[in-house]
Structure formats: structure tokens, C-alpha cells
């Protein structure tokens, strides 16, 4: 670059600076003002609203109810409860059918085939008892609830209800020193935390964005809804008379989701009072109009984008996890398997917080995907509890025709209602899945915030489970 050019540039900047003083400070305002005036002028000329009838205001009528001070939250809980109730009631039968096909029928056929062509038993163990069964399990446990839950949830979204949820919660988030838009990203997190964390880009202030990122994990995600639904059905629904089971277990799941929201508020408050101090910035949230949901399109997107996507992810992670499970169950050190070593070692601590070693091990194996926690827990329970009559050997996932069988196994594994409650709590409060952790790192570019976001929820999970367990035992004794 020559010197003359450089001078020309400085001259240009200098003359702009001089002119700015001549025009005065109000340049920015005057531009904005003229944009607004001109827009209004043009709009007035071309827009005609004829005979504004009552019908137009049905949006406001609905909004007055669903975002009202008193009814807003109850309606929100009711809507979520109905969605879960339908899911819980509807998923049981198809789950059994699929398990029947994939596990009871197909698994023996594969085993026979493998032995007929002379496959060594360790190889058929790893591939068929490990990888295949893990996959079959994930499909039968997860596909039916997802195929019911996601379309319902997507319908609510398409209709325009989710922004109202955000609107209801926006004020709460601002009160705890976070950004109101966090209500939106939290709602996105109900689908997928990684998506919710990417969505925090709509928050301008870095302070509030970090808060939103750290607390996004408190939104139950796709991978955790099925766990919640299944465990609630077995332990909460099982503890009450049969005719109440559906409603009560749905209420329990809603309760956990609510607890997540409360935790996100409390933690946001804590963060904005300590390491992320600052004032909440203001913003305006626009409520989109209600639009009639497009049923077919919704079914398509919710089945393809969500159900199949989540299922595929679960299967992809279940296959290697299945292999790992088979290996830790079958490799022995001093006559005891690695899995048993770990559970025996961690049981004292785990039982103190009302969980057990199996759950901890399952959560370690399932870090890549929350989706496979329940299958892993069940498999390990059978192994460690040494339940006879199910499965065909150590580390083999077994035939499970229904929720009732699952329930039988967990009870045989020494599970109580307390274990169920704690598992639900721990499923809400534990480290994010590996995809989410990676997303957090990509978005924050900071190891510190990534570590905090990953460790903080686990610590809270242990603390909360410990507290619940102590109180429970106090009352029970």
C-alpha cells in the first residue's frame, strides 16, 4: 500500500468525522425516524382493513386465557399432562409387540443361524447378544412413546403454543437476572439440548448467553423423555391403584419437567448473583398468530426429523454400547466381571444417594446418548442381580415383552419406589450427553464454561438425590 493511498483513506475518515459534528448527534435517530415515517406512509397507502369483525380477535381471546396471570401456568401443566397421559397409555401395547418380534422371535433365529455357520461364541456374543439386542431393545422401548409424543408436541409447536409458554416464563427469567429469551431457548431444549444451546445465539449479551447455555440442560430432552415416562409408569404408576396409574405417572413426568424449570431459574439466579453478575437486558417477545396446524406435514416432520432422528441416534450409540456392556459383563478379573467390580465398588456411595452402582455405571456407558440409559440399566441389573430365567447368559439382553416384565426385573434388582424417583431426578440432573458437551464447547470456545456446564448438573443431581433419600428414609423409619 502506498503512502498516498493511506493518506486518502485517513482524509476520508477525517472528513466524515467533521461532517458528523456538523450534522449533529442525531444522525442515527433521524435515519431511524425517517425509516419509520416512510414505512408508515407507504403502509397506510396500500393496506386496507375492511369491516373488522369480531372473528379477527380470536387470537387475542385465546392469548388472554393461555397467557393470563392465573390460568397461564395451570393450562400449561394441563396441556403437558394430557400429552404425557396419551403417550403413556398408548405406548405399552406396541412396545410389547415390537419386543416380541425383535427379541423373542428374531434373536433366537439369529443365534441359531450364527451357531449353524460355526461362529465362535464370543463373536456371536458381542454381535448378537451385545450389539443386536441393544439395538432391538432401544427400538422397542423408545419407538412407540416417541411416535406418539413427538407428533403431539410438534402439533402444539406448529399451532403456536410454545411461544406462549415462553411468554409465561419470560418474566420469571428476567427476575432471576437472566435474559427473557432464555425462556425460548429452554423450550427449544425440551426437544434437544444441543439445539437449545445453538439457539442461545439469539441472546446478545455474553453473560446472559452463558447462563442460558449452562442451564439449558435442565430442560428434559428427547433422549430423556422416554426414560422419565417408562420409570414413572413402573414405579409411580405402580404405586397407585390401576385406574389412577396413567394420570399419576403423567403427573409425575410433568412434575419432573417443572422441577427442571425451577432448577434452571434457581441456578440462573445463583449464577447471576455470583460468577456472572449483571443486570438483565430488556427485549420484546412477539407472539406469533395461532396458525391451524398442518396435520400431515407435522406428522411427517415429527416422524422423520424427530422420531427417526432420535431413534437412529439411539441405535447408532446403542450398538457400540451393547458391545461395551457385553464386554464389561464378560471380561473377568479374579473371577468377577468388570461390571460387578465397579458396582460393588460404587454401591456404598450410590446407595447413600438413593441410587445404585448399576445406575452409575449405566450413566457412564450412556454418556454418548441419554437414549440408552434404560436399556443399559436393565441389562446390567439382570447381570448383577443374577436373575435366573431371563436371558440366556451373562451380559445378554433378555426377552422383555412388556412394561410388566421390565418392572419385575427392576424390583428383583432391589429397586424401590425411591430408586425410581431418584433415577428420574438423576436423569434430569446429570451431565449433558457428549453431543451437547461438544456443542457447548463449540459455542463458548471455552473449556472452563464447558466443564462447568458438564459438572454442575451432576453435582446437583447427587445433592438432590442424597437429600431426597435422607428425607425419605427419615419419614419411612
Amino acid at each position: 500500500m502506498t503512502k498516498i493511498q493511506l493518506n486518502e483513506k485517513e482524509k476520508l475518515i477525517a472528513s466524515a468525522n467533521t461532517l458528523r459534528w456538523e450534522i449533529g448527534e442525531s444522525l442515527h435517530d433521524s435515519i431511524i425516524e425517517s425509516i419509520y415515517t416512510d414505512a408508515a406512509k407507504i403502509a397506510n397507502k396500500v393496506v386496507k382493513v375492511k369491516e373488522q369483525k369480531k372473528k379477527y380477535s380470536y387470537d387475542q381471546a385465546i392469548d388472554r386465557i393461555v397467557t393470563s396471570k392465573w390460568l397461564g401456568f395451570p393450562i400449561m401443566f394441563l396441556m403437558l399432562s394430557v400429552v404425557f397421559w396419551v403417550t403413556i397409555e398408548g405406548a405399552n401395547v406396541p412396545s410389547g409387540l415390537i419386543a416380541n418380534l425383535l427379541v423373542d422371535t428374531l434373536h433366537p433365529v439369529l443365534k441359531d443361524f450364527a451357531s449353524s455357520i460355526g461362529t465362535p461364541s464370543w463373536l456371536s456374543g458381542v454381535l448378537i447378544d451385545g450389539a443386536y439386542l441393544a439395538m432391538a431393545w432401544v427400538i422397542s422401548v423408545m419407538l412407540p412413546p416417541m411416535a406418539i409424543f413427538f407428533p403431539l408436541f410438534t402439533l402444539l409447536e406448529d399451532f403456536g403454543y410454545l411461544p406462549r409458554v415462553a411468554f409465561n416464563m419470560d418474566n420469571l427469567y428476567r427476575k432471576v437476572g437472566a435474559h427473557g429469551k432464555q425462556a425460548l431457548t429452554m423450550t427449544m431444549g425440551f426437544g434437544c439440548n444441543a439445539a437449545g444451546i445453538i439457539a442461545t445465539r439469539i441472546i446478545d449479551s455474553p453473560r446472559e448467553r452463558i447462563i442460558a447455555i449452562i442451564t439449558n440442560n435442565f430442560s428434559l430432552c428427547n433422549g430423556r423423555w422416554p426414560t422419565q415416562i417408562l420409570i414413572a409408569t413402573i414405579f409411580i404408576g405402580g404405586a397407585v391403584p390401576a385406574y389412577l396409574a396413567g394420570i399419576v405417572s403423567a403427573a409425575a413426568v410433568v412434575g419432573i419437567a417443572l422441577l427442571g424449570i425451577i432448577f434452571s431459574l434457581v441456578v440462573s439466579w445463583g449464577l447471576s448473583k455470583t460468577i456472572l453478575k449483571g443486570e438483565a437486558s430488556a427485549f420484546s417477545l412477539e407472539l406469533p398468530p395461532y396458525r391451524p396446524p398442518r396435520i400431515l406435514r407435522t406428522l411427517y416432520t415429527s416422524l422423520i426429523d424427530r422420531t427417526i432422528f432420535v431413534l437412529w441416534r439411539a441405535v447408532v450409540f446403542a450398538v457400540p454400547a451393547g458391545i461395551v456392556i457385553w464386554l464389561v459383563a464378560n471380561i473377568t478379573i479374579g473371577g468377577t466381571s468388570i461390571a460387578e467390580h465397579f458396582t460393588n465398588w460404587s454401591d456404598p456411595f450410590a446407595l447413600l444417594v438413593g441410587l445404585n452402582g448399576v445406575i452409575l455405571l449405566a450413566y457412564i456407558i450412556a454418556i454418548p446418548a441419554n437414549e440408552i440409559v434404560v436399556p443399559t440399566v436393565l441389562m446390567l441389573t439382570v447381570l448383577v442381580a443374577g436373575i435366573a430365567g431371563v436371558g440366556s447368559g451373562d451380559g445378554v439382553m433378555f426377552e422383555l415383552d412388556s412394561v410388566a416384565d421390565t418392572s419385575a426385573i427392576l424390583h428383583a434388582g432391589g429397586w424401590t419406589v425411591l430408586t425410581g424417583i431418584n433415577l428420574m431426578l438423576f436423569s434430569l440432573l446429570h451431565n449433558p450427553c457428549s453431543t451437547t458437551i461438544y456443542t457447548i464447547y463449540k459455542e463458548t470456545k471455552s473449556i472452563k464454561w464447558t466443564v462447568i456446564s458438564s459438572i454442575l448438573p451432576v453435582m446437583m443431581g447427587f445433592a438432590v438425590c442424597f437429600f431426597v433419600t435422607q428425607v425419605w428414609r427419615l419419614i419411612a423409619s
Partner: protein
Amino acid sequence: MIDQSKCEACPVHNTGNLKRLGINMDKFDFVVALAGNPNTGKSTVFNNLTGLKQHTGNWPGKTVTRAEGGFEFNNSRYKLIDLPGTYSLLSTSTDEEIARDFILFGQPDVTIVVVDATRLERNLNLVLQVLEITERAIVCLNLMDEARRRYIEIDERTLSRDLGIPVIPTEARQGIGIPNLLTAIDEVVNGKFICKPYRITGTSKGLAKAVEYITEKIKRQFPLLPNARWVALRLLEGDQKIIDAIRSGEISGIAKRNSVEENFAAV
């Protein structure tokens, strides 16, 4: 209004010439940017044109990153960029900056501003701002069905004349009006429709003079820069980013399309 649904079902109709290319964007002839306020249906228009299945939702702020896709129409290949929804291009949040920088420096051959027909006035604020930065734009007047339900009528011809750019009414959720949008894109990029964009009027004489003066100076310094007037405005406002870009000479560098991608990698 004439019932167009029969025409659209006919195979000789425009959509017959549309080839959705999905994520295949090789060797494109033109770049089309898709801007608009949040929740006006940008992603729906995007999906309609590219055949992609970007997740859409009744939900402002669904698109936070740029999404890209391709389509072919009348033997031209287009690359379509779905920008994040913004209310303005003046303030400094990340999504507004992404949208603004792309329209400014990415130099799309045409920018489609998707507009909510039921909230025209507020949406026009963005349209006017876009017209400040770019010459070639199209207003896609979306959600016409909703406007109809609310008894809102819009004189799109007058609007088009006033703005000096094509205005195409659509109902993107149903795919209605997309053929007309395609025709408009084709006409603008091939110079069959010459845009004479509306420029804001309300500013004072002194300002107008100052803008003109600086614009001339910028044009002399950076003859390749297409949006000299807008850069002049920002310079007069004292936008530090623009001052730095002029000082470092970066401003002429980013005016070239081939360097746009690296520029965005940095954003």
C-alpha cells in the same frame, strides 16, 4: 383475484421449470438471499424453493444460522441463502450482523424480503433498510391467507410501484404464489425487471449533502464497492467496524464475492 390454482396444476406452468436441488449447490449462476422479520415464513419459502426440509416452526428465531440450498429455474442455477430473521439491520446483535453483512458484502444477485402481510407496516421498516443497502430486491408478501382471514387487503401493485421492486403475494405454507416468485427472481437477476429502489426521504438537507459528498469520495477510493451510499451513512454515524475496514483497506477486499466465504467463517 383470478383463481390461480388451476393454472398451477397445469404442467406448462412455471413450477414445471423448477428443479429443486436440495443441498447441491455446484456451479451456481446466481446467489439469492432470503431476509425477513422473524416468523414470517422464510424457512417455508426456503423449503419450497430448494426441496429441503429445514425444520420450520411457528416460532420466532427458529433459524439462527445461515442455511443454504440450491435450485434450478429456467436453466439457471441458484444458490439460496436463508438468513436469520431480524427486525432491523441497524443494531448490533449477532443475527442482525450476519444478515446485514451478507446482503452488504455477499452481494447476492437478488435479496428476497419475506414480509408478513398482516403486519405490513412494521415489516416495511426492514424492507426500507434492505433497500438502503442493495439495489436488487423482491418483496415476498407472505401469509396472504392470514391477511384475508383478518379482512386485510393489500394493494400490491401500488406497493410495488412505491418500493420500485417486484412485490409477490404468497401463501408459502400451501405453496401458493411460489411460481410467481420464481418468475420475479428470474426477471430481476436477468435484468428484465430493473429495480428502482425507494430511498428514505425524511432526512435533512444537510445530511443529504453530506451523504452525497462522502459517497463520492468513497466511490473514488473504492470504485468496486457497490454500496457506497450505505457505507457513507455508516461512516457518518461513526460505525467503528466500517472505519476500521476502510483504514485497513479490507472494505474493498470484502466487496469481492469470492472472498465472502472466508469472511463468514470469521463472523
